[in-house]
């Protein structure tokens, strides 16, 4: 049996109230150690105020070959963008 520690994906929320962001991965025997290791590997300079760790194996990703078809439907829906609409100048900012 390989004793290699499983891989974890690390997500960190920075100081300014933004979402947790993926910063990289690391090996650890369990979730608690993954958080401790993430503290040392990814926040040596106060990069974050909150850490999430997720087993890499538990992540389901969209397949790269679907890149086109998966996002196609949104291409034709230009009316979802505010710039689609002409608002007269005299109305001011909207």
């Amino acid at each position, binding site marked *: 049996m*390989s*004793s*290699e*520690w499983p*891989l974890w994906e690390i997500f960190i929320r920075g100081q300014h109230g933004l979402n947790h962001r993926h*910063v*990289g*991965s*690391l*090996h650890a*025997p*369990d979730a608690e*150690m993954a958080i401790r290791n993430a503290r*040392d*590997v990814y926040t*040596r*300079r106060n990069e974050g105020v909150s850490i999430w760790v997720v087993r890499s194996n538990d992540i389901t*990703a969209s*397949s*790269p070959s679907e890149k086109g078809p998966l996002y196609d439907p949104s291409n034709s829906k230009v009316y979802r963008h505010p710039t689609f609409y002409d608002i007269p100048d005299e109305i001011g900012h909207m």
Partner: protein
Amino acid sequence: MYAQLVKSEGSKSRDEMTPEEIAFQDRIDRNEKIEPKEWMPEGYRKTLIRQIGQHAHSEIVGQLPEGNWITRAPTLERKAILLAKVQDEAGHGLYLYCAAETLGVSRDELLEKLHSGNMKYSSIFNYPTLTWADMGAVGWLVDGAAIMNQVPLQRTSYGPYSRAMIRICKEESFHQRQGYDIMMKMCAGTPEQKAMAQDALNRFWYPALMMFGPSDKDSVHSAQSMAWKIKMNTNDELRQKFVDQTVPQAEYLGLTVPDPDLKWNEDKGGYDFSEPDWSEFFAVIAGNGPCNAERLGARVKAWEDGAWFREGLMAHAAKAEDRARAARHAAE
């Protein structure tokens, strides 16, 4: 560089490429990033594993020459700084191993190849660090040379490698500055301290120049790596930039670069300088440098001595998981 001698593929002309390879090259030419699960030529994947792996190994082995001085740093502040610097290098190694793993190689496999001598690390770390001034010279010259190579690699085509390089570059300038700071203190000190700084420069100058790898006329297959944007500049380009940047810094310190032929060349807008002794470089890479056996020995010993600990934590994690599962069943 930190990956000085990466075996690569011969380059292909467009007519020799398959349609998939052409589409791939077009993506790279458009500066699109290639991501882990996407199609890539086998040669691209293999070359990257070798290069990122070598780079990671260099960061890890690179902790040893400086680790040598942590317990003997002259002040508590210097000790804390050196400790933080060496810890950063451990982090750099970890970012890079993870980037390599996205290409389908395991961490254990990479370490096994390092320990068996089948993968290399930078020749620079096979030189001894004899005095405290060497901590200055290493930060100033070795990290300085590393930065020269890593800054352009932030734009490399492989997404995870590029992101690792961006993180690393953010941390690297502290390394070089703390080294130069040590040199400034030594050079402003007693004549003995200044002589120590000069001696460190004398010993590290040519090994630092070797970090960029063999001269362009002798470096095989770098064309393919450049086309794939996993190598952004030639070895000689980077070496020249490094010399041009470093000579004025040495002059500021009042130190002499140990090269009698070093001369400003107005026409090319850079210095003419002597090449390092390439036979020494190849000997060190082949395992016959002053500290190869000691460095690799220290890595293998750390790995073997840590086995019981790694296995123990895995066993603990498995037991805790079993207990949690049993508790869930009991509650149902």
